[in-house]
């Protein structure tokens, strides 16, 4: 999955990164978009933004990822950025149980502000800190199943599963979108309002036929 120029893509998907302060959202983003990690990163104020394009089913999918501040106080600002999001990574820190407890609130927040088709992945970050683990994989899995979200543990520091987590979310969004394109024919204007999915004017429908072969 090579890094490539930004200007050329078939699909543009808006994805948000949410979760408590200090769980590693910004480092997940920098690992995915620039392959960088910093132990000394600053807190995110308001929102920040980065992009990366990947291939899904021979299509170029460009992710426009909005990284949000974790502090509750900022939610009034950051929730405005949920609008139009078709994917979300809801991140907690596997070494701080309270960040997992708050996942439920984040999920509600997200569902209140986004389309019901949004693809959500629960992400347990800092999985490299094995001796400090405070949230079991089983608990997180059970929660994800109950809430009908995807789930993965990651380590932005060790670059573990970061690629997989984002790719999975983007692939799932792609499937949702191409399924919709199939249902509504090839009239992109018929897509539900409130989604900034930029459907290319090429053969959207034919892409759907290849779906299902690229899950992570």
């Amino acid at each position: 999955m090579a890094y490539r120029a930004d200007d050329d893509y078939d699909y543009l998907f808006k994805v948000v990164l949410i979760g408590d302060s200090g769980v590693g959202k910004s480092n997940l983003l920098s690992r995915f978009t620039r392959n960088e990690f910093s132990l000394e990163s600053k807190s995110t104020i308001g929102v920040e933004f980065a992009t990366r394009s990947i291939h899904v089913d021979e299509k170029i999918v460009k992710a426009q990822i909005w990284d949000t501040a974790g502090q509750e106080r900022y939610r009034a600002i950051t929730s405005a950025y949920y609008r139009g999001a078709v994917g979300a990574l809801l991140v907690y820190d596997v070494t701080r149980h309270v960040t997992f407890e708050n996942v439920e609130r984040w999920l509600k927040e997200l569902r209140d502000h986004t389309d019901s088709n949004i693809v959500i992945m629960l992400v347990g970050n800092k999985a490299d800190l094995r001796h400090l683990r405070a949230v079991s994989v089983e608990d997180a899995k059970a929660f994800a199943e109950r809430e009908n979200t995807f789930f993965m543990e990651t380590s932005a520091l060790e670059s573990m599963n970061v690629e997989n987590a984002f790719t999975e979310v983007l692939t799932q969004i792609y499937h949702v979108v191409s399924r919709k394109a199939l249902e509504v024919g090839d009239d992109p204007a018929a897509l539900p309002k409130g989604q900034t999915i930029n459907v290319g004017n090429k053969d959207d429908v034919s892409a759907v036929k290849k779906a299902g072969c690229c899950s992570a």
Partner: protein
Amino acid sequence: MVCVEKLRELAWSGIPPYMRPDVWRLLLGYAPPNSDRRGGVLKRKRLEYLDCVSQYYDIPDTERSDDEINMLRQIAVDCPRTVPDVSFFQQAQVQKSLERILYTWAIRHPASGYVQGINDLVTPFLVVFLSEYLEGSVDSWSISDLSPDKISIIEADCYWCLSKLLDGMQDHYTFAQPGIQRLVFKLKEVVRRIDEPVSTHMEEQGLEFLQFAFRWFNCLLIREIPFHLITRLWDTYLAEGDALPDFLVYIFASFLLTWSDKLQKLDFQELVMFLQHLPTNNWTHQELEMVLSRAFMWHSMFNSSPSHLAN
């Protein structure tokens, strides 16, 4: 007796480092202009800070409410992430001082409480008041060279100066941060009046000022320029006094339009990325002075004739 108005005029263009601690305390109204009273007032205020610390900070978590525990936790998450590119702030004792100042401030200002980014705002005060006791450059400082008494004096000065600074911007940090939203809106208007082409281009690209300028107002530009230039910038901030929030708009317009030509060549995503990581790494005082003097000029042109901004 110091004439504070005269001092403001002089300080606006930069304060010599050795005078900065005294001048900042005066400009913020923390130290009284009357030199006979000054020593006594500062002594009393510093004791009051110590009282607050023992009353609010040095207590077990069992005596804190859930909200207070959450706030302390948030502050503890942010202190190690404060100006991480300056190694001095990585010293454990420095981070502890920050934590005490921030938590005490937050408890005593319940309308806003601690908001991420306020941690950044303490750092100019810390380096300036530490410079009264430590020599050489910040990179060579070690806070453990100082006695606990001195550290508590410095902390107290930081606490009171932070309080004075933020008193003038109370609604910047209350729920939904209306003060910042208002200034961001004003910034957009001012930029439109000064540089129509940039303004039009940004609008066509769908770029919202809130997407980049929010952080500027929230952290007063600390995130955007090299740390060694910050105290100079703050000389002007503090010289503005009560007029600071309005003047920030002109400083930030001037800052933004430093890249007027460049901005017009970028599309939406490039704009957001560029504005998030502005190329100021190699900035010297020269670039900063340019931003400030242009801000001064535009402020005189537009602020005295509000009709320029009316339509």
